[in-house]
């Protein structure tokens, strides 16, 4: 059995961290407050997104950006500028994203970025929340007859090289005392085609990626995504550290989207709901009190956001939900009231 080479990955990780740190240090502590003011002055939000991740950030046939992360950019743009179209998208690769934020080339990084301690502290990022709870999962062919990842002992596993995915895989099989043969491949699309052509029994990557990978299979119905999630990958929008007001704006935009879903406020009924008797709804939509003021936002900012992009549930269903080709279940991303992890802090 071949174990993935840990040393190489530690070196890569170290180099990445070193680059990030030096960037953070050189960017004169990055403490550029007043991001909100700059955005208003410029009249558009500069948002860093993935160059292409199905359901999170991609361009449709008209060339418009769409996806879960993209809708978060639009939500923040609506809160600050009142216009969901006032966004300049910067498609960023994985290595580009942190320098771009530190160099002040973008205002908001909504690029399926995992919230880790290292990034939150040493890299000088400030995460505003978790807009998608992801985690590494497994996909197998139906005819393998496997229903749980714990039955995968002795399996051949296709995995992308140089990612935390590969390390998590090694940890999981070691912790459960199972053997496996890794087939390590450079790019995710090559991993997919290797799995599809039968070079391995199991495909592993983040669960959201598995849903997209399944669509590339010659027969999607022949493949099952196993229920086990073996790592924590909380993805969320991030901003530069040192601008508390801006971080608060992004954070409360996220909570407003969650609260709207919890209170049943959606894109269609937001105007009616302004007349609701429910004090929670009235506070959220800025009917009685002005919660936008401390953030420097208009009184009805949350109502504007919801009428522009919908609540969290609508965003989810529109981009990655069961009615899209990706068919991702809410799972951990359901509201806390439905047994999920998404919990919006109260507006009061």
């Amino acid at each position, binding site marked *: 059995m071949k174990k993935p080479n840990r040393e190489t990955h530690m070196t890569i990780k170290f180099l990445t961290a070193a680059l990030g740190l030096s960037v953070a240090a050189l960017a*004169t502590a990055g403490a550029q407050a007043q991001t909100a003011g700059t955005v208003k002055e410029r009249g558009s939000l500069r948002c860093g997104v993935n160059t*292409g991740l199905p359901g999170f950030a*991609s*361009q*449709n046939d008209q060339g418009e950006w769409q996806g879960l992360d993209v809708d978060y950019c639009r939500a923040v743009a609506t809160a600050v500028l009142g216009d969901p179209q006032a966004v300049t998208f910067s498609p960023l*690769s994985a290595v*580009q994203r942190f320098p771009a934020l530190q160099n002040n080339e973008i205002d908001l990084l909504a690029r399926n970025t995992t919230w880790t301690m290292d990034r939150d502290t040493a890299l000088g990022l400030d995460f505003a929340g978790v807009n998608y709870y992801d985690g590494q999962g497994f996909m197998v062919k139906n005819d393998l007859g496997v229903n749980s990842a714990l039955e995968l002992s002795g399996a051949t596993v296709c995995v992308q090289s140089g990612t935390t995915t590969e390390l998590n895989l090694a940890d999981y099989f070691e912790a459960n005392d199972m053997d496996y043969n890794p087939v390590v491949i450079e790019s995710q699309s090559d991993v997919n085609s290797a799995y599809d052509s039968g070079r391995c029994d199991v495909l592993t990557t983040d669960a959201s990626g598995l849903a*997209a990978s399944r669509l590339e299979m*010659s027969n999607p119905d022949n493949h099952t995504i196993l229920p086990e999630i073996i790592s924590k990958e909380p993805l969320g929008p991030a901003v530069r550290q040192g601008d508390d007001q801006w971080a608060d704006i992004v954070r409360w935009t996220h909570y407003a989207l969650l609260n709207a879903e919890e209170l049943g406020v959606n894109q269609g009924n937001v105007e009616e709901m302004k007349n609701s008797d429910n004090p929670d709804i009235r506070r959220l939509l800025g009917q009685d009190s002005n919660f936008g003021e401390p953030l420097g936002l208009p009184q009805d900012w949350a109502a504007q956001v919801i009428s522009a992009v919908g609540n969290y549930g609508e965003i989810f269903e529109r981009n990655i939900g069961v009615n899209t080709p990706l068919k991702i279940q809410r799972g951990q991303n359901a509201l806390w009231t439905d047994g999920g992890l998404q919990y919006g802090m109260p507006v009061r």
Partner: protein
Amino acid sequence: MQEHANAYVSTKELPQLPAPRNDAGPIAVLRKNLFATPVDTILTLVCGLFIVWAIWNLFSFVWLDAVFEGADREACLVEGGGHGGACWAFVEAKLGQFVYGTYPSAERWRVDTVFLLLALLTAGLLIPNVPYKRINAILLFAVFPVVTLVLLTGGEFELAGGAIALVFVLAAAATLSAVGSVPRISLSRLEMRIATWLLLGAIALMLIAIVLDTPTFEILGFSFSLLTMLAFVATLGAIGLSMMVGFGSGQTTIKSMVAPLVIAALFIFAMTADFDLRYVPTNLWGGLMLTLVVALSGIAASLPFGVLLALGRRSHMPAVRLICVIFIEFWRGVPLITVLFMATFMLPLFMPEGVNFNSLLRALVGVALFASAYMAEVVRGGLQAIPKGQYEGADAMALSYWQKTRLIILPQALKIVIPGIVNTFIGLFKDTSLVYIIGLADLLGTVKRGFADPNWITPTTPATGLLFAAFVYWCFCFGMSRYSIFVERRLDTGHKR
């Protein structure tokens, strides 16, 4: 005498017999070349079957099983699973993005205009029979880039006083050299010496203006600092003086005296005037358009810079040679990816706060410098292939260095290295796809981004998209290659070995 001829001697020529059946005709050719021995026969059959199999598979993928129309991925999926043919509907739906990137639809006519101008001007320059080559070249290399810049971005640039002064410094230099080249005017005349000193002073003032802040004020909507204003005035003085000398001599035409000034003014007008074009930021550029912008500006910059660097490397002046060697070896020694990464991530760190270079511009400069170093070595190969006698002959004719280089050496050297030059161009054209990793979406980049659209994910989408991209690249590169062969034949004046 005839009756003495032997009866068995033929009196007329016999008709030629056909060659033996075994030695001529298609069957004989086949037998000789493909089926001569049992091993040959087996190899022929195996290869033949492989070729037929490969072509058949390719044909059924791109044509027989292919899906040509459809609104989304459903159209390209095969009932019951399995791989289908090419999903051309995907390419059709995304074609606009593949060509223009995210350039706004309403403004795409601007890109079309640029494409059309480029096609017309290039065709005019490349086809030997088309007249007006000189005007055509001026249009293509001087006017077209400015028009393209204004059309694609929308123009209305805010030129600082320094930039304007720089343009006029160039104009002054052109006027000075035009007057200086008139036979009976020497650069050592008092007026000319004053003009030269004014020009040098203006350059010095502009260099100082970079580091020294002086009060700024607005003139005609342009913001000048005190120093750049002084530089500007000095430049105008230099131009005025040299024009005075030129006209005074009666040896110059009005055209050659006034042209630099007019061109400079026109240039500044074109850059700053409001043509009522919407501003399109470069982060919306993409697709084939971006590939062409990067490749063509790289090609256009690399040839002149490459020639200068090659000449510099063979120069007898130690400082020039050293600088050129260091430049060439540095840029040739680092991978293009590193250059692009450096330009994207490191450069902003060295810039003062608030100064932000356009990311496309950074990539363009990186690509141009990189390509120049390669081009320099190609051209140097040509320079070294010219026999010493040519240099000595030119020297014996008392030609100056630049006359010798321009009239004797370069025409021969460049002709020899046409294959190398075109090879570098083709390599550069394909290398432009590396800009994808710094977040610019060229042709390959937009195709790859298309794969992420959940509406189009199918098993065959990536293969189709990449096949399309490969075909477009191939068309351009093959076109360049054929044209280079044509030029080689045309310029082949008896050195064929």
